[in-house]
């Protein structure tokens, strides 16, 4: 078992964990975190594949590395947008839920000028 196998299997397990969390956790913030975990697993798979493409002088194939860096930034932007949506939902409709049947309690807009 080498580096690639160990971390490859670890990445596969992280993807599965994240997928389970996205489906089975009811709270929206938990879903966002689970989605990030899933993404992290996918990035690790990229890292493992990059590691296999190592050549003399370069420890890891630079193309998957660059894709992962771009992916990390995009995933962070998406997370920030999701959190902003969630906080706004919480501010306008009370406890944040994805359950469409849940009773909403309208609150006065607490942002004054």
């Amino acid at each position, binding site marked *: 078992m080498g580096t690639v196998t160990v971390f490859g299997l670890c990445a596969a397990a992280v993807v599965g964990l994240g997928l389970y969390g996205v489906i089975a956790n009811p709270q929206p913030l938990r879903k966002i975190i689970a989605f990030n975990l899933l993404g992290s697993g996918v990035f690790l798979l990229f890292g493992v594949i990059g590691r296999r493409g190592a050549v003399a002088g370069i*420890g890891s194939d630079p193309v998957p590395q660059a894709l992962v860096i771009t992916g990390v930034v995009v995933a962070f932007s998406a997370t920030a947008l999701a959190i902003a949506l969630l906080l706004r939902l919480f501010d306008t409709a009370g406890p944040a839920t994805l359950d469409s049947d849940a009773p909403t309690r309208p609150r006065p807009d*607490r*942002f*004054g000028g």
Partner: protein
Amino acid sequence: MTEFLTAAVGFILAMLALGLVSILRGPGDADRVMATQLIGTGGIAALLLLGTVAGVPAAVDVALTLALLATFASIAFVKKGLSRFEADGTASTENE
């Protein structure tokens, strides 16, 4: 030398894992937030040793970044989690 350093990383990582188990169990949120502090010391030590073992000189830069940013989660916790208590005047007022 490499074997010794690898064993040292393994040992520190084991200590880190034990500490994480103890901290994440709680009982309070303040205990849990300490996890980031724990990684800010133990994780950085492991990272520095690992960089020497694996021959990745840039690990020092990664450790520098972690040392700068590991505190941030704790600060966010103190600021937002306890704004109601006006701890040390470090509260955030939501509305003016």
